C-alpha cells in the first residue's frame, strides 16, 4: 500500500522530533556537575579575528574557574562548559543559532557574540525565551534602549569610545589658555551602528563644550582610500580629527594623514590596538590617540586572575598572542555568570537573572555594576596615545601613565 508509507514515515519523523526535543530539554543546563553555557561566535567571515578573541576569552575564564574548583551552588561545586557554534559573522545565522542553543541544546545561559550587529540579532531571541544573556562585545547604545530585561553588557557602550578624547582636548585647551569653544572638530565614521554611536557620543561631548564640528563624513563600508575626506580635513584645519572605521579606518587614517601631511593637533581613532598601528606602521603612528575598553596596565584586581597584568600574562601563555580587550571583556562576561550563580544559589534562570542584575563586583577588567538597562556604567574607557612606538595610557587621568603630548608632532 503505497499510501500508508508516507504516513508511517511522518509518524516516525514526528516521534524522532519529539524525542529530540525531550532529550534536548533533559540534557538542559546541567550535565552531571557541569553547567553548560551557550555562545554563537564568529569563527569564519569578516569578524573571524575578533570572534576568535571572544572565544579565547571565554575559554580562558572557563579553564581558570574550573581549575579553582568551579562555582559553588547549593553546597555543590559545578564546572562550567561552553557550547559554541560558528555564526559566520552574519546576524541572521546568529539568531538561528541562538534559537538552536536554547531549543535544541537546552542551554539556559547565553554568552554574547562578537559585534553589536550579531548581539542585536541574538538579544530578541534570548529575551523571548527569558534566557540570561551576558555579553562583552556588543557596544551599540541601541541595545540598551529596547527595554531588554535579560541582556547585560560588561563593556562601556560605544558612544563612550571617543567622548573622552573631546573632553581631553577641552582640558588641554583650557590649560593652554584657549577657550574650548574655539576648537573645531573634523570627523569621519563608517556607516555602521557601532561607529554611528561613537559619532553620537562625540556630538554630545562637542555640544557640552560648545565646540564646532566642521567636517562630518560617513565612510562607505568598503572604504579603501580616505583621500577625498582627508583633502577636505587638510583644507579646513581642524583641532581634532576623530575617526571610527574599525581596523581599516584606523590604518588608513594613520597612513594617509602622514602621506598627505594632514597636520591636526589631536588625531583619535577606535580599533588602533587591534589594527596594531604602533607595531606595523612605525613612526607615522606617533601621537595618535586610541580608544580602548581595557588595558593590562590598569590597576584592577580580582580573585580569579589577580591583576589585569596577570591576566594578560596568563592569556599570552595560553594562546601565544597579547590579550586584546575583546578577549578581556569576554572573560569578564563569564566571571559575571560565575559570580551570579554563586549568589543566586540556583540555576533557575529567573534567580540568576536577578542575581546578575544585582552584580556589584571588581574584576581584572574593571568594576562591573549594571544600570537598569543592563549596561555596565561603573567602568570608564581608556585612551592611549602612541608614544615612542608604544601605547601609553593618557586618560582617564587616575590611571594615566603619562601626559598627553599636545599638539601631536607630525612625523616627517
Amino acid at each position, binding site marked *: 500500500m503505497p499510501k500508508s508509507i508516507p504516513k508511517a514515515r511522518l509518524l516516525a519523523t514526528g516521534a524522532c522530533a519529539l524525542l529530540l526535543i525531550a532529550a534536548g530539554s533533559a540534557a538542559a543546563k546541567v550535565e552531571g556537575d557541569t553547567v553548560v553555557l551557550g555562545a554563537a561566535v564568529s569563527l569564519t567571515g569578516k*569578524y573571524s579575528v575578533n570572534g576568535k578573541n571572544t572565544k579565547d576569552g571565554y575559554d580562558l575564564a572557563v579553564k581558570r574557574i574550573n581549575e579553582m574548583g568551579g562555582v559553588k551552588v547549593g553546597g555543590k561545586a559545578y564546572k562550567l562548559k561552553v557550547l559554541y557554534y560558528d555564526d559566520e559573522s552574519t546576524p541572521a545565522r546568529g539568531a538561528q543559532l541562538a534559537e538552536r542553543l536554547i531549543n535544541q541544546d537546552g542551554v539556559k545561559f547565553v554568552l554574547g557574540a562578537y559585534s553589536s550587529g550579531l548581539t542585536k540579532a541574538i538579544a530578541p531571541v534570548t529575551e523571548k525565551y527569558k534566557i540570561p544573556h551576558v555579553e562583552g562585545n556588543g557596544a551599540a547604545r541601541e541595545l540598551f534602549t529596547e527595554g531588554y530585561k535579560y541582556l547585560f553588557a560588561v563593556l562601556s557602550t560605544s558612544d563612550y569610545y571617543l567622548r573622552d578624547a573631546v573632553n581631553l582636548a577641552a582640558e588641554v585647551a583650557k590649560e593652554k589658555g584657549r577657550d574650548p569653544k574655539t576648537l573645531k572638530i573634523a570627523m569621519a565614521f563608517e556607516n555602521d551602528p557601532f561607529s554611528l554611536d561613537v559619532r553620537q557620543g562625540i556630538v554630545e561631548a562637542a555640544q557640552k563644550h560648545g565646540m564646532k564640528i566642521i567636517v562630518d563624513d560617513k565612510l562607505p563600508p568598503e572604504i579603501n*582610500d580616505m*583621500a*577625498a*575626506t582627508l583633502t577636505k580635513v587638510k*583644507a579646513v584645519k581642524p583641532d581634532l580629527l576623530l575617526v571610527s572605521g574599525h*581596523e581599516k579606518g584606523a590604518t588608513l587614517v594613520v597612513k594617509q594623514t602622514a602621506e*598627505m601631511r594632514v597636520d591636526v593637533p589631536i588625531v583619535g581613532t577606535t580599533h588602533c590596538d587591534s589594527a596594531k598601528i604602533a607595531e606595523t606602521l612605525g613612526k607615522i603612528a606617533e601621537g595618535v590617540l586610541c580608544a580602548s575598553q581595557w588595558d593590562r596596565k590598569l590597576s584592577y584586581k580580582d580573585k580569579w586572575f589577580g591583576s589585569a597584568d596577570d591576566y594578560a600574562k596568563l592569556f599570552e601563555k595560553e594562546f601565544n598572542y597579547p590579550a586584546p580587550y575583546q578577549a578581556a571583556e569576554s572573560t569578564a562576561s563569564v566571571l559575571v555568570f560565575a559570580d551570579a550563580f554563586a549568589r543566586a544559589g540556583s540555576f533557575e534562570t529567573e534567580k540568576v537573572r536577578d542575581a546578575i542584575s544585582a552584580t556589584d563586583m571588581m574584576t581584572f577588567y574593571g568594576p562591573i555594576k549594571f544600570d537598569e538597562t543592563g549596561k555596565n556604567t561603573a567602568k570608564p574607557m581608556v585612551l592611549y596615545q602612541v608614544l615612542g612606538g608604544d601605547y601609553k595610557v593618557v586618560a582617564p587621568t587616575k590611571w594615566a601613565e603619562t601626559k598627553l603630548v599636545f599638539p601631536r608632532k607630525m612625523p616627517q
Partner: protein
Amino acid sequence: MDNLRLLFAAPPLSLQLLLDGILIGAIFALAAYGMALVWGVMGLINVAQGELVMLGGYAAYFLYRAGIHPLLGVPVAAVLLFFLGWALYRSVIFRVVDKDLFISILATYGLSILLQQLANGLFGANVRTAESGFGTLVLLGGEVTIAEIKLISFGAALLTGAALLVFLRRSRMGQAIRATAQNARAARVMGIDTDRVYAWTFGINAAICGASGALVAMTWIVHPYLGLPYTVRSFMIVILAGLGNVLGVLAAALGLGVAENFAGFILGAEYQAAFIFGLLVVILVWRRFSLARQRRYLT
C-alpha cells in the same frame, strides 16, 4: 554646498583631488584591462577579479614580511598569480567558456566567495599593509602632496599596460589570443590550440590583477574582503570603454578615479560609490540613445 565653495576658494584642492584621482585610476585600469581581456577573448565576465587583486596584495605582503621590498614583490606577485590563474582555468573556468554568460557569472561568483573565505581562513581578517618606505612629494608649499608610492604605482601600471600591449601585438601567443578573440572557431581551424590560449589569457589576467594587488597593498591596505569594489569598478570601466581598447580602458579608469575623488569631496565619502553608480546608469542610458540614433541612420 560648503564643500563646493571650499573647492572654488582654494584651487590647490582641486589639483590635489585631480592628482589623487589620476593616480588611483591607473591601478583600476590594470584590473579592468584584465577583465576586458578575459571578456573579449573568452566571452566570460570574471566576477572573481577583485579576489585576484586581493591575492596579489597578500602575495606582496608576505614577500614584504620575508624581507623583499614590495616593489620587487610586484613582478613576483604577478608570476605567482599567473600560475594561480592557469590552475583556476584548468580546474574551473574551462568548464564555463562557451557557455551562457550567466553560467560564467555564477561560477566566478562562487569562485570569488571561495577565494575570499580561503584568504580569511588562511591569512585572517586583519588589515595589513606592505610598508614601502617611500616618502611624500610636497608641492605648492605643502598644499598639494603626492605620495611617491602612488607615483610609482602609476608608472608601474602604465608599464604593465604597455608590456601587455606589446605582448598582444608582437608575440605569437599574443597573436593567437587576438585571433581567438576575433573568431575562436576560425582560429581552431587555423590550428590554434584555443584551450591553451584561454589558459594563457586567464593566467595573464590573474597576473595583471596580481600586479595591481601588490600596488594596492603598498599604497593602501589589504584584507580578505577587499575584492568587490575592484570587481565593480573594473566592470564599470569595461562597460564604458568597451572590449579590446587599451587606451579607452585607461582613459575610463583615470576618469573614474578623478570622478570618484571629486564626488567624495563634494558629496561626502558616503555618496562616493552612489555617485559612481549613478554615473554608470547615466552613461548606459546615453549610450543607448546614441546607438539608437546610429541604428536609425542605417535603416
